[in-house]
């Protein structure tokens, strides 16, 4: 700590937001007597031009080294005050804020109490400011290009947008063809257009695009590096490629629920029982016979493996209501004399033209019956569905020649492997976890890695395409900028004190610390480090320190609050 911290304190009135509850003049007077404080001012709106001007001027004329602003939440204006200080020659990391609005004047009514609290908060901020060190804002360069893992619709669309924007896109697909699960579909709701009308074109665009390299029969072996500078190793049979890119998009899709996990439905025992995916194939191939005959009674069972805690899938698979309506309609159209029934709990036809589609299905003669089928067994050479029709309030044996199980989606079997590659967390439902469920649906906790499509959760094709483009957008931001900012307030190790215990390596969610193989001490990758402080908290030797939140700074704050 320098002998002369030379701190300037600025107390904002925020109009009446602060001043109406806190005696700002009394607070200013208190602040002016705090150790290290050279000047203390208060002003109606510190964030305004004149307010910022005060800071700049004092920094230049009074030779300030640190600035404390007591105002609203740092979320609002920390960058503003950092810039103001910087324009006056003070390092932006030597600016500390005391939130006397959201944490004081906005939540307390008593003027005396609020004023005392404001004083404490400022004393604490000044104490910390005394110990603040200058830090540099840093940026690193970005390798142009993105790797897209998964060649289904999500992967195809994401790759196209990246490539159309002029960057190389590497599409890694496990199987021998592109198109993913959509390639197995016949027609899609609600337009009822054959997939063949548009998917091949999409695939063709990708395959012929100059900037897209497709790796079929390939898998990602390893991913190293960090946002803007990933090194992705892709293996294809015996060959392997090292790709250097700036962003990664995960578009690995989903698996289908195995209906054998619901043994009460007899899937596998009776040839009359098929899944919606199998039905899709039959519709595409025009093969609707069961045991050589056209079915007369067709029944759909929804929510197979979804909304079901018994199989560990409490979530809704989102698309099955529309899929069932679609297939039921197609079957009714192709077999007009058949009876087609759909057994449901709720009908979730929520999308654009979805409700109308459901209306049309019923008008075409598809019978919707509310009841969750409990069991299927043989009845003669047909099967019987044991179900309570909850509107009739009666349990019935509904006979059928063909039963279609609307099986749900679930996270892929190998999702753990992909998750491990990239250190991606998963939500309770098993799918990949997005950075924020409302406002960041395609970002992940790992910078530079984005999600697209059903690997994040069940969804239909339009929502998948939107997400894929959204992931492309997130990828294009660093690619187009050419640089990414990296956290300045990172953890650093005092090698003399470090015992090489490795606890920091274990607890870091971002893989930033690593034990140097030669010296056996921890070294922090300042680019990966996000400054969360977990390593510093756990270090038994106090060798690890988090810049901008050092023990001296925090203890000084505590002392100021307590005393």
């Amino acid at each position: 700590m320098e002998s002369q911290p030379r701190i300037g304190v600025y107390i904002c009135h925020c109009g009446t937001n602060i001043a109406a509850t806190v005696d700002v003049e009394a607070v200013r007077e208190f602040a002016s007597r705090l150790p290290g404080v050279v000047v203390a001012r208060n002003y109606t709106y510190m964030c305004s031009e004149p307010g910022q001007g005060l800071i700049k001027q004092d920094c230049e004329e009074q030779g300030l080294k640190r600035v404390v602003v007591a105002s609203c939440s740092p979320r609002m204006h920390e960058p503003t005050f950092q810039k103001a200080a910087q324009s006056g020659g003070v390092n932006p990391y030597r600016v500390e804020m005391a939130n006397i609005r959201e944490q004081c004047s906005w939540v307390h009514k008593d003027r005396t109490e609020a004023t005392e609290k404001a004083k404490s908060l400022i004393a604490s901020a000044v104490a910390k400011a005394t110990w603040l060190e200058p830090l540099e804002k840093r940026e690193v360069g970005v390798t142009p290009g993105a790797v897209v893992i998964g060649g289904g619709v999500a992967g195809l669309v994401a790759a196209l947008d990246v490539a159309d924007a002029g960057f190389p896109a590497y599409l890694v697909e496990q199987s021998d063809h592109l198109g993913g699960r959509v390639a197995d579909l016949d027609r899609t709701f609600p337009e009822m257009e054959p997939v063949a009308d548009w998917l091949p074109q999409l695939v063709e665009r990708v395959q012929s695009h100059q900037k897209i390299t497709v790796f079929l029969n390939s898998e990602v072996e390893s991913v190293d590096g960090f946002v803007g500078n990933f090194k992705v190793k892709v293996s294809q049979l015996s060959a392997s490629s090292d790709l250097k890119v700036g962003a990664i998009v995960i578009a690995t899709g989903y698996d289908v629920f195995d209906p054998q996990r619901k043994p009460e439905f007899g899937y596998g025992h009776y040839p009359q029982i098929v899944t919606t995916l199998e039905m899709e194939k039959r519709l595409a191939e025009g093969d609707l016979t069961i045991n050589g005959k056209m079915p007369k009674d067709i029944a759909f069972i929804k929510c197979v493996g979804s909304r079901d805690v018994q199989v560990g899938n409490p979530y809704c698979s989102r698309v099955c209501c529309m899929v069932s309506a679609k297939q039921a309609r197609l079957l009714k159209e192709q077999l007009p004399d058949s009876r087609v029934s759909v057994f449901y709990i709720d009908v979730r036809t929520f999308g654009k033209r979805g409700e109308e589609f459901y209306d049309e299905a019923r008008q075409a003669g598809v019978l919707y019956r509310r009841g969750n089928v409990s069991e299927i067994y043989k009845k003669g050479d047909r099967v019987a569905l044991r179900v309570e029709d909850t509107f009739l309030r009666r349990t019935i044996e509904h006979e059928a020649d063909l039963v279609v199980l609307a099986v749900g989606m679930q996270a892929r079997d190998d999702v753990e492997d992909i998750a491990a590659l990239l250190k991606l967390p998963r939500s309770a439902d098993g799918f990949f976890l997005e950075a924020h469920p409302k406002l960041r649906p395609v970002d992940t906790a790992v910078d530079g890695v984005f999600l697209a499509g059903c690997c994040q959760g069940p969804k239909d094709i339009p929502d998948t395409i939107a997400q894929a483009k959204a992931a492309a957008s997130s990828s294009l931001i660093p690619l187009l900028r050419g640089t990414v900012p990296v956290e300045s307030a990172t953890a650093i190790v005092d090698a003399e004190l470090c015992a090489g215990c490795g606890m920091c390596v274990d607890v870091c969610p971002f893989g930033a610390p690593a034990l140097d193989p030669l010296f056996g001490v921890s070294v922090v990758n300042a680019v990966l480090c996000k400054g969360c402080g977990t390593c510093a908290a756990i270090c038994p030797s106090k060798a690890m320190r988090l810049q901008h939140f050092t023990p001296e700074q925090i203890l000084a704050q505590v002392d100021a609050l307590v005393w």
Partner: protein
Amino acid sequence: MQVDTQELAERLSLFGCIQCGKCAGGCPVSMKTTLDVRFLIYEALIGQLPDPTHMEELWDCTCCFTCVERCPKDVKPAELIIGLRSLLVENGTIPKTVTDALQGIFRQGNPLGFAREQRADWADGLNIKAAQEGCELLYFVGCTPAYDLRVQPVSRALARTFQAAGLDYGTLGIEESCCGNEVRRVGEQGLFEMLVEEGKPLIESTHAKRMVTTSPHCMNTFKKEYGLSGVEVMHYTQLVAQLIADKNLEFSKKVEKKVTYHDPCFLGKQNHIFDEPRAILQSIPGVKFVEMDRSRERSLCCEGGGGRMWVEGTNMEERLAFQRVHQAADTGAQVLAVACPFCLLTLEDAVKVQKLDDRLQVMDIMELVNLAL
């Protein structure tokens, strides 16, 4: 009689119910009685449950727990029926035959009207050790296997099997009392708790590491509801299958029969023990095993559980046991194998009533094993 539906709904956590009907749809008696458990839950939720005093259909429930096993929202519909039954028990308005059975359990430790002193008569001549003196394996016989003449051969077959395998086993003799599985299910919670209070220390005093039962009903309650510690509870099919697999049991004779197997609800559906009984049957030399369509998780309840051995249902013309024995006969099997004393009695009765006795014989698995030993 007023029912505090709010209390019921809270205690049984009925709020998660989405009224999908999976429970009633799978309820084995729902097509032949007015019992609609989904609807009962709804009435409870909206606070409009009628007076259960005159709900005779409440006694139709066999407690097969298909509803509990299949509910996608983890509601336990059968517990509502049990809860309503217990209100009726408190109120004193339960069928007389149930009262008699409960009183028998209270006084003599069994619902069948026999004296406690006769409980070990089935074992005469077998010199079975008293488990109270300490044993590795406690054989819990059960009321029906102890007293019922038709079922006693099963108990004896088990005893002989344990002997042949050289196991250190014993029984509780006349100190053994009813396990209480059916007691709780007819709603007599107080008596059930008393049975646990007395039975638990008695069992633990044997220091047995393992406990085996004749009946899946006993196994079910000991395993899930007694809170026993230090003892592994199993049904005899699990033990015997293991003995066969470990070659501790050898068959010397052939049983040349076509055999099918009925999964008891308390063994199969509720405790997921499907393979061991089949393993035993398929290892008996000469047996040709054939599967019924409604097997395993889709087995058809025989209507023996949930107190149904003590009270007739509202519809005894369309007994499920009748359907079941026809299903068995239709496979061409000569023997319908069972692993539960209630199934044994109800299905054998059904064979007689349906006049299938010339085609189909109902036997416990142990009776078949005994033939082959």
